[in-house]
């Protein structure tokens, strides 16, 4: 299975302010649509897709990547190991 590569890295290192930024990885086909990640993401980065995956569930999509701080709560809450977040320090951008 291939992770949907949806990073939040700004172009040419011009990244938003703040110490951290996040990157989220979603494996659509593993998702069972429980909605935990969407509900408990503290900064409301995610929403459930209207389209379904091949199992017939609605997986999360990223609607506001700028808000992601890479806390990985989505990764902790996902019972199906279908999403996780990674935190980067802002100076890593480049």
């Amino acid at each position: 299975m291939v992770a949907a590569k949806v990073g939040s890295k700004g172009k040419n290192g011009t990244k938003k302010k703040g110490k951290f930024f996040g990157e989220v990885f979603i494996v659509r086909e593993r998702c069972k649509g429980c909605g935990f990640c969407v509900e408990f993401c503290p900064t409301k980065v995610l929403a459930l897709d209207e389209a379904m995956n091949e199992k017939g569930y609605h997986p999360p999509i990223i609607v506001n990547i700028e808000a992601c701080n890479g806390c990985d709560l989505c990764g902790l809450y996902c019972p199906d190991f279908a999403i996780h977040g990674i935190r980067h320090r802002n100076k890593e951008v480049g």
Partner: protein
Amino acid sequence: MSKETNKEMNPVEPYLRMDRMPHIWCSGCGIGIVVNCFVRALQKSKVDINKLAVVSGIGCTGRIAGYFKVDSFHTTHGRPIPFATGLKTARPDMNVWVFSGEGDLVSIGGNHFIHAARRNADLKVICVNNFTYAMTGGQVGPTAPLHSIATTAPYGTYDQPFNLPFLAESSGAVYVARWTTFHVRQLVKSMQEIKNKPGFSFLEVIAPCPTIYQRRNRLGDGLAGMRYYKERSKVVNGADTRNVDIKLGGDIIVGKFIDRDRPTQLEAMDQELSHKLGDKYVPYPTGVER
């Protein structure tokens, strides 16, 4: 285990038998969250996975052992604690974890549970409590709240449920905590503490079972269960465990309740027999890395 994990790879992947995915757990089941928290705790405390054993009994939670890519064993129903006790006795250098459901651990295996706690066997016991025998179709379990509906109690249960932290404390456990699957950071922290704690540690994790328990009791889906935990859990660290019983529709008291020290089963044996037999006794080769 290689540290060279790809950032696109879910953090659990190096620890699980991914060839066995997708797992059997339903949409909105809480058991996968317990797996996530355990993996984060292992990563943070830099556990040597060659010194790690995961043992489970039968049931939905009992599947955890089969999914872990470490020395793991899926025992018969109710028997993970005796198996784990034997494993720990033969290999005292290993970190031995038991993951199982409440039906397996405190009903079918209830006698093993109280005696391992009494002896202070050096085991880390994680009990996923979803209030029912889920895999076998929803019979009344040992923690089913009074008046809840089950297939074997279609008009509601009338038997007093176990209050697991109280049971564990009074049986002799040295560490007792309860969290729900909403409390992911606290679960990671408790698991890290348990990793370093000699003796019988007990962690109860309240988890949603939308398919069997919640559907029959009209408690909604997995997300409804999680929202309930968020709204109705009260953190009371150090609470008197006599007062943490769970009522249908009531608050859930969570927290770390007990953290105390006494000699483990093997330490007690060494002390007693060294005292009685002197030089004739060869002490047990203990010494797990903590």
